């Protein structure tokens, strides 16, 4: 998410990740403004977990994220398209082998 040039007195932007339950990964759920990390955690609790949506929260400054450029989508991800042999279903195995 973009971080507008904050020359102002605006609090920095943080990205919020919530683990919905023990055993699952933290998942991005949104962003918020906070003065520091501790406050960002408190805010994230109020904004994103009012209904027990989480058991753990991560916050990190949005400015710390390096994202791939949508323009590079083809260069980055296209090469995997013709490598169908990376999927198990590519290989035909006789039925009598059973589950493999």
């Amino acid at each position: 998410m973009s971080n507008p040039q904050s020359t102002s007195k605006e609090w920095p932007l943080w990205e919020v990740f919530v683990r919905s339950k023990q055993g699952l990964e933290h998942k991005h759920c949104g962003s918020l403004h906070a003065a520091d990390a501790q406050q960002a955690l408190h805010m994230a609790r109020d904004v994103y977990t009012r209904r027990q949506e989480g058991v753990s929260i991560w916050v990190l400054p949005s400015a710390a994220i390096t994202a791939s450029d949508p323009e590079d989508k083809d260069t980055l991800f296209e090469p995997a398209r013709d490598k169908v042999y990376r999927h198990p279903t590519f290989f035909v195995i006789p039925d009598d082998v059973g589950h493999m």
Partner: protein
Amino acid sequence: MYTQSFNVPDGAAPAKPVAAVLNATQQQVQDAAQIKFDAIIDADGKIEPKDWMPEAYRKTLVRQISQHAHSEIVGMLPEGNWISRAPSLKRKAILIAKVQDEGGHGLYLYSAAETLGTSRDQMLDALHSCKAKYSSIFNYPTLNWADVGVIGWLVDGAAIMNQIPLCRCSYGPYARAMVRVCKEESFHQRQGFEALLAMMQGTPAQHAMVQDAVNRWWWKCLAMFGPPDADSPNSVQGMRWGIKRMSNDDLRQKFVDATVPQAKVLGVTLPDPDLKWNEERGHHDYGQIDWDEFWATVNGNGPCNKERLATRVKAHTDGEWVRAAALAFAQKKAKQQAAQKEAA
């Protein structure tokens, strides 16, 4: 809750910037990007923040999402008014939770708008200086406790009708915010309806309060869906872009059809002599909405416009020192930590 499903032009439009003249190569690149964008929209795909998008698409979204966010925040005021006067501890706890949700919805939406390159400060400045609109429904007063129930039942009910199609909006962050909002919204409508049911099991005076509140809010709720399709020229473009999924009149009809049986269960009448089932259409017919009153309110002359805005501005101004102090504290701590690291 609470979008007004159309996007009113915000006041004091800035002078149109002169479009930069593109050279042939730049023009080619832009045309290619436009073709790609159109293909995604045609395939009902999603646009994400860093993707190329036409300037007009970006501007429309910023305006609509920020108006929606402002509506959530201003929407806290009419109900917040009743927190200290709720009839029981249970109702008070429910109302606090609901008003807090509205604040949360505003925050999800401001974040979504910020992904388009506008800043929170810019949006708040626009609201506080009257340049940005918010849903006109909040410029009416909440006169008695039944108003709180009716806001939940009808105003939130209308908002849900509006917002469910927005979950499929072509702009990813807006659609995701709406999914979250809609999940929470259902509680708002049900708590309102249930509060009214409780009153309808009470004294004749309580019945009268409910009926009075319904009479005052019904037409305003119908107007929330925006002008008739024939008078909404921007809707077509919004539909084309997958920002708007259903027309104002279709949504309004859906709302009327859903609400009539609910009113029957509740035991109240809806204040429209022309409201009746039309067998042929398979829908309810309803009377004329007073659009002059609606526009007067949108344009700043409703009963509570000035009070709502003044309350918002005061809250923001009164909080100024808190925001500054938190930032100063964070900067001081960061400096101390850096010094400690250096010393170590």
